[in-house]
């Protein structure tokens, strides 16, 4: 059972400094997009159960840190394919999905399943897995909170606003997974050291002949809202009194 995991490197959203209403994104450290960790973990578990290889594909849309690539490899990934170049920079899930689909075909990467996170920590468009499925003409299963593989078929519990839906499809297929599907392993220092020696293949985006509809970024601003930030600590009566006054002011006690 060969698995491809699609992985995005992102700026850690929790550590982006804000200055005058602007996000200084490039000053934040780089991390693996949260739900992609779940895709990597699921890929590793499938490999450990069914035998086979895990290939990670990383399209560099901006953020980059070699150490984070090693963290990807340390999650029992066999090799990593990195698509780089100005042609893939910036937010455009269509383009990223096309780069992934084309690199899979060009490098002849074997796969039974392609796994992605449900959405990325920075953009959360949730579009890429579905577009990859379309481009490769294979079944698409999104928002899987549970996966089972049995006799060449995949069964998934899709986690939706309205409850759960169980679907089944033949392999090969692409699935996006939710953060609830598993608890991603934290690689040891030794595993990360070893990972440095694993195969990293670089592919130039300019060789992939990408053509896609454009998305033009006009502006980006911080989306925070200032709050009063009054702290009440160590005085329960004061706390209750304060909250009761707020309730009365807002007219919620009838």
């Amino acid at each position: 059972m060969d698995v491809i995991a699609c992985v995005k490197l992102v700026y850690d959203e929790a550590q982006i400094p804000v200055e005058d209403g602007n996000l200084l994104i490039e000053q934040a450290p780089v991390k693996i997009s949260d739900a992609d960790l779940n895709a990597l973990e699921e890929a590793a578990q499938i490999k450990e159960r069914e035998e086979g290889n895990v290939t990670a594909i990383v399209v560099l849309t901006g953020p980059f840190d070699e150490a984070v690539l090693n963290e990807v490899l340390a999650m029992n990934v066999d090799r990593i394919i990195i698509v780089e170049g100005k042609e893939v920079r910036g937010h455009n899930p269509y383009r990223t999905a096309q780069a992934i689909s084309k690199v899979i075909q060009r490098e002849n990467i074997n796969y039974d399943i392609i796994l992605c996170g449900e959405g990325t920590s920075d953009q959360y468009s949730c579009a890429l897995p579905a577009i990859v499925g379309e481009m490769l003409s294979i079944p698409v299963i999104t928002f899987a909170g549970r996966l089972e593989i049995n006799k060449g078929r995949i069964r998934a519990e899709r986690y939706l606003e309205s409850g759960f839906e169980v679907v089944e499809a033949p392999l090969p297929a692409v699935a996006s997974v939710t953060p609830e599907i598993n608890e991603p392993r934290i690689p040891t220092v030794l595993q990360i050291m070893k990972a440095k020696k694993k195969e990293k293949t670089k592919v130039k985006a300019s060789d992939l002949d990408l053509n896609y509809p454009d998305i033009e970024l006009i502006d980006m601003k911080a989306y925070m809202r200032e709050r009063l930030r009054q702290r009440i600590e160590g005085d329960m009566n004061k706390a209750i009194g304060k909250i009761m006054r707020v309730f009365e002011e807002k007219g919620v006690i009838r």
Partner: protein
Amino acid sequence: MRALLFSDPSNLPKLVSASKDIAEEIHAITWEKIAVPVDRLEVIKGALVNDCWVSQLHEEIKTFDLMLMPATRDSKEIASRLAAKRGLPYISGALSLKASDGLLTTRVVFGGRGIEELKISMPAVITVNLDVYEPSFGEPKSVEERKIECSSKISSIKERERKTDVDLTKAQVIISVGRGLKKKEDLSMIKELASLLGAEISCTRPISADLKWLPEERHVGMTGVKVKPKIYLALGISGQIQHAVGFRDADTVIAVNTDPDAPISEISDYFIVENLYEFVPKLIKAIREKRKEKSN
């Protein structure tokens, strides 16, 4: 501009509101008859999985400038696949839409820390975040009903549960619980407080998705509902950005947390460092006394 709307029946009235400002002609497709003021309503039965909708809509979309869907998880899949099939630009979870030599949209990024403005050409496919819209009801100018046959490689083994009517976006007071709540049974104390205040109960994603103590439609945040109550009372919630973006538009945010350094301290109006298990019973008592006082 001509817009094609595709939506589950419950989100359609809000989607119509979102499209009214930019489209002169509106066609809508859904699977149950619902009274919405559109030029043409098509009720299509028999499509069981997303695959069926993709192949169905893929033809219908051709003559429109814009295809709009609600930003639900199913729609996000269908919309991106349609965009891929037709080679059209796709924007996911748009907060606003404006026509101007193409289409200007805004969307939330970085888990809720940023908002970006994007421009695309038309025709295009958009999923819209509907939490800010009021529903539009009225009679469609024409209605067509039909049933389709669909064969797909993907089969639905168990159908999804039905959505209930709760609409957290309308709630004036919301009591929200996070992992500071230790067991499901403790929700009874939260319910008691909620009924005293006429409040709705919401939660963080781990409470609905991991623990399944509350239904999914009650989770607030980037992947859940965006609420705008007068009061948002956050009990045992750390305040990670993915959750916090969901209560950004609340008037007043009160947080109760045992950890004096919890991130929610920075994004609440009143931050109370207390154990919720001591705080909630005392608050219930105080409200009861106040009411008694008032009725005397």
